[in-house]
């Protein structure tokens, strides 16, 4: 079946903070704007339980914050489609092509805000236990472990915040990290103050065990040089993120790790293609900088369209 062709001024790929902010600004500039999202509207932050460092909010859930930003973007005229999956893009020409399962879109500008996804647990048994003890969404799956022994793998803010959240379900919680904690002090203080929590630093997870579902893991204490088996019912994996940029390989210039090369003006190597938010190679990646990137990309996209 031939797909219907549609035209847009701006197509934004990814509906996290950068993408929805770009949509808000592009919509307010009267540009016909479509946001496409293959995963969750709101992006990674939609899973955050409590955000305390976004200006204007003492504490807000990621879901509530991003729902509001989506509503703002839609009120400004942008359209958000989270069900029509992108199959391919061709960004090299003056007219940008974004083909989804249902349509072929032609756009003057594409803003890439596809963000990051969680790194998988790098063990061969990962697939066997995924959903059966190995998890990547605390909000969705934490409830399944009422009064169980939960472990969290990782040492950054996401890991420590996940551990703090999961203590409400866990009988006992282990935070396991291969080096020192990098999370901010406020989150660490909360973690260490909880009597359910044991923090195992300089410790690696080396193997997973269990019939049908996870029942224990093998951990290696680097300082002691000792390996031992630890009974746990679940591991929530928070060991960093990888960029969602496979769609753009061979077209947009990237770093070796797959982040898109673009300056503070968010312009990529391709005219009319911008990159904003965590997917852009930069030193600081926060919600606030994602919003700033989205703003910059949309306003410079408008200028670019005016110049055509």
């Amino acid at each position, binding site marked *: 079946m031939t797909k219907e062709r549609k035209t847009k001024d701006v197509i934004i790929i990814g509906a996290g903070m950068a993408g929805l902010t770009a949509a808000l600004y592009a919509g307010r500039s009267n540009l016909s704007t479509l946001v496409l999202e293959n995963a*969750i*509207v*709101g992006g990674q932050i*939609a*899973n955050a*339980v409590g955000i305390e460092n976004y200006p204007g909010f003492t504490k807000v*859930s990621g*879901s509530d914050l991003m729902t509001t930003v989506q509503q703002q973007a839609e009120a400004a005229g942008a359209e958000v489609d*989270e*069900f029509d*999956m992108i199959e391919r893009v061709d960004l090299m020409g003056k007219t940008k092509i974004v083909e989804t399962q249902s349509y072929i879109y032609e756009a003057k500008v594409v803003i890439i805000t596809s963000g990051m996804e969680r790194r998988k647990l790098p063990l061969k048994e990962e697939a066997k236990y995924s*959903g*059966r*003890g190995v*998890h990547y*969404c605390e*909000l*969705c*799956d934490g*409830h*399944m*472990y009422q009064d169980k022994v939960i472990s969290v793998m990782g040492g950054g803010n996401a890991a420590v915040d996940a551990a703090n959240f999961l203590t409400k379900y866990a009988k006992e919680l282990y935070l396991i990290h291969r080096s020192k904690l990098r999370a901010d002090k406020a989150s660490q203080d909360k973690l260490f103050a909880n009597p359910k929590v044991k923090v195992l630093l300089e410790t690696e997870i080396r193997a997973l065990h269990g019939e*049908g*579902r996870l029942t224990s893991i093998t951990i290696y204490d680097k300082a002691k040089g000792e390996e031992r088996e630890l009974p746990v019912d*679940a591991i929530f994996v928070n060991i960093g993120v990888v960029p969602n940029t496979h769609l753009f390989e061979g077209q947009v210039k990237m770093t070796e790790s797959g982040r898109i090369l673009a300056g503070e003006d968010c312009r990529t190597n391709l005219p009319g293609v911008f990159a904003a938010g965590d997917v852009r190679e930069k030193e600081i990646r926060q919600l606030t900088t994602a919003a700033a990137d989205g703003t910059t990309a949309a306003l410079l996209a408008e200028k670019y369209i005016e110049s055509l």
Partner: protein
Amino acid sequence: MVKVYSITQCPWCDKVKKYLKSKGIAYEEHNIELSDADRDECYKISGDLIVPVTTVNGKDFVVSFDKAKLDALLGL
């Protein structure tokens, strides 16, 4: 009959429910936070400790949001 096993704060559960609504498909929501029986049933259906789980006519099911599988089961 379509059933969605979910919890209150769960972005993927929300996505499944929004998708069903967008297609005009009625569903029965089973919040496993509110019912141990639903939680046990959810685990029995999929064997996974994960939500959302969507069942169609009590036998076929989809774990998480998988548009292709949902479409196939729902005949979309």
